[in-house]
Structure formats: structure tokens, C-alpha cells
């Protein structure tokens, strides 16, 4: 039963990643693209945790933690660049 639920959740997050990619390629404003990138990072964390449950190891949580931190910093850096024209003043 857990296998079927993992399969369903992985399909859901895979489709979500595809929709984020569509918004990144189409998005009329730069804020939309940044938002879609941030959503992609969060969806990928979920996908990585699902893969960790499926493999039965806890190794992937460190990778998920690192990706969460890098994704947050990159989102803030993009927004700072749009707001100020510079990241570190």
C-alpha cells in the first residue's frame, strides 16, 4: 500500500514540476519566473524525500536540507537583484 501511495505522490509532484517548467518558459513577468523556480525547489525536496522513503534510507534528508537552503538563498538573491540592481550592497 505504501508503494502505491509513493507512486501516486511521485506522479503528482512530477506533474507539478512540469507545470512549473511551463510557467518558467511562458511567465510574462520576472516575478512569475522566480516564483516558479522557488516552487520547483520545494517540489523537488518533496520528490527527494519520497525517493528516500522508497529506498528506505535516511541519506537523502541531508541532500533535501542542502537544497532547501540553496533554494532559499537563490530566491532571495534573484529578488534582491530585481529590487536593487545589486545583490550585496
Amino acid at each position, binding site marked *: 500500500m505504501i508503494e502505491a501511495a509513493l507512486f501516486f505522490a511521485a506522479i503528482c509532484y512530477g506533474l*507539478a514540476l512540469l507545470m512549473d517548467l511551463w510557467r518558467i518558459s511562458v511567465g510574462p513577468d520576472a516575478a512569475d519566473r522566480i516564483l516558479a523556480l522557488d*516552487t520547483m525547489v*520545494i517540489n523537488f*525536496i518533496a520528490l527527494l524525500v519520497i525517493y528516500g522513503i522508497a529506498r528506505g534510507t*535516511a541519506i537523502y534528508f541531508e541532500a533535501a*536540507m542542502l537544497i532547501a537552503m540553496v533554494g532559499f538563498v537563490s530566491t532571495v538573491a534573484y529578488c534582491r537583484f530585481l529590487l536593487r540592481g545589486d545583490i550585496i550592497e
Partner: protein
Amino acid sequence: MPLYVEILISVFLVISGVFGFVGSYGLIKLKDSVQRLHAPTKATTLGVGGVLIASMIYFIAKTGHISIHELLITLFLFLTAPITANFIAKAYIARNMREGELPSSGGRYGWAVYDDPPESRPGS
């Protein structure tokens, strides 16, 4: 692993998958940029929270002791999601709206994108 634990993990996984899907579907469905900000920042964060709860229950049932990594990831995501949403909204306002188009901020100071921060008095 007992049956009710498997049912609990599966329910959390299915709910979180639906929430993640709805968050990204709102990203392509909603009309305006500021409307689009709503769907991923709330639904997707909740979806990731569900996956992490399912993972925590699974590893407690499998190994017998509590793993703290998932709680760290959940805490980090729930702390940073409002900050990123605020930054994206500020970037949108700074690029797309002039100062006259914005409604009144409702407070004593204007919008943070255009006004200087208020003078901070020590001790007040």
C-alpha cells in the same frame, strides 16, 4: 510494520501529493501575477509538510527512534516560505507599479518599496 501505520503513511502521502499538484496547477491556472503568488506559497508548503510527516512516521515505525532531520526541513521551509513570498511581491511591485497606482498602505508610513524606513527611536 502494522497495518494502521501503513494506512496513516499512505493517507499523508496521498494528501500531500494532491496539495502539491494543486499548488502548481494554481501556478498555471490563475490569471494575474499577484494571484499566482497565492497557490505555491501555501498549498505547496503544506504538501511538503505532509510528505515530511509521512517520512517521519515511516522511519519511526521502521527503526524505532525519532529522526530529527524532517523536523529541521519542515521548520526551515515554514520559516522561509513567507519571506520568499514577501520578496517576490516586493519585486513585482517595484517592477510593475508606480507609486501613484498603489492603494493606501493603511498605516502611518507608505509602502516599503518606495518609502524610506521610519526612523527608529531607541527605547520606543
